[in-house]
């Protein structure tokens, strides 16, 4: 009997942990990060169109993090603020390009808050600028 109670408690703990992890990673839970609806790949400002990919109106989404032109960012939802995200970013260009792993160790990383609204799986708005999916995958 004690064994059964222990097993049930362990199962409940595991379920809670998995759900929490899914929420943090945007793993598709309805309670999770709204960004998880967004299709990973390359996006361009609708003002420029996909012909502008690689230019100032570009953005990349890796399934969890949304990075602007010549940036690599860690995107974290701000608890209690719908559609508000903390963007911890590093700029990188040409030979000075950086990876996600560099963000926590590079003193040049900057923190900003942005409003990101996912309009559909292939369209989002960031601080009022609308972006649409162009294809590809980072």
């Amino acid at each position, binding site marked *: 009997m004690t064994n059964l109670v222990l097993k049930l408690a362990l199962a409940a703990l595991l379920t809670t942990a998995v759900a929490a992890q899914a929420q943090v990673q945007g793993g598709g839970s309805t309670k999770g990060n709204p960004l998880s609806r967004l299709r990973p*790949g*390359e996006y361009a*400002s609708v*003002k*420029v169109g*996909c*012909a*502008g*990919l*690689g*230019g*100032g*109106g*570009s953005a*990349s989404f890796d399934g969890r993090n949304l990075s*602007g*032109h*010549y*940036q690599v960012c860690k995107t974290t939802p701000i608890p209690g603020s719908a559609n508000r995200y903390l*963007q911890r*970013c590093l*700029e*990188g*260009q*040409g*030979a*000075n*390009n950086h990876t996600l792993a560099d963000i926590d160790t590079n003193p*040049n990383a*900057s923190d*900003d808050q*942005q409003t990101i609204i996912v309009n559909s799986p292939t369209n989002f708005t960031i*601080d*009022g*600028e609308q972006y649409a999916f*162009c*294809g*590809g*995958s*980072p």
Partner: protein
Amino acid sequence: MRRIGTLLAIVIASSALASQCPSGDALLMNNTPLRTLCPNGFGQFAPGSIAQAMQAQPQNVSMITAAADQYGVPLHLALAVSFHESEGFNSCAGSNTGVKGPMQLTVETGQDFGFNRNINEQNIKGGMALLSQAVRSCGATNFACLAARYNGSNAAQQAGWARGVAAADQQLTNDPSLLASACQGGCSPSNQGDFPNGPNDSTPNATLSA
């Protein structure tokens, strides 16, 4: 004879900083903060055609023309890169939290060449310095190689950059009248027209007062 030699040396030294676009050379000597040009912040713009963008941004185009000459970058390539990077030679293209300006330079890359990317003229000179370095490694027509050196983002972004810059480069190369019109942004306090997201038209252009 010695005086003539000295004079010749001064002329040669001066010509190293001069280009075929004197008005662009003069404009490049200013130091205008991008935030002064873009009081409404930074954002995205519909670039329109290259001809339209050149007409809308005559001062930036003149400075790009002069800087290309100073750094030994083919003019058609310099204009193609800025057109693609900044949605039509636009100082206010970019984001408030990231890269911005006519050449979309990062802080670190600007510093590598001794420039402050948040100053409009230095943004252009720093971008041209990077492009010059890329051209020396790649030549002026290997756009995939140029994308790796100038853009350096993921493969899809680099491919988009190469396609966009190549297309703009081809348009500029095939239309000599576009290149011939590149140096028309005169250094005059009354010259208006640049920076559509900038101060209203009744304010003299901040570039010229810096």
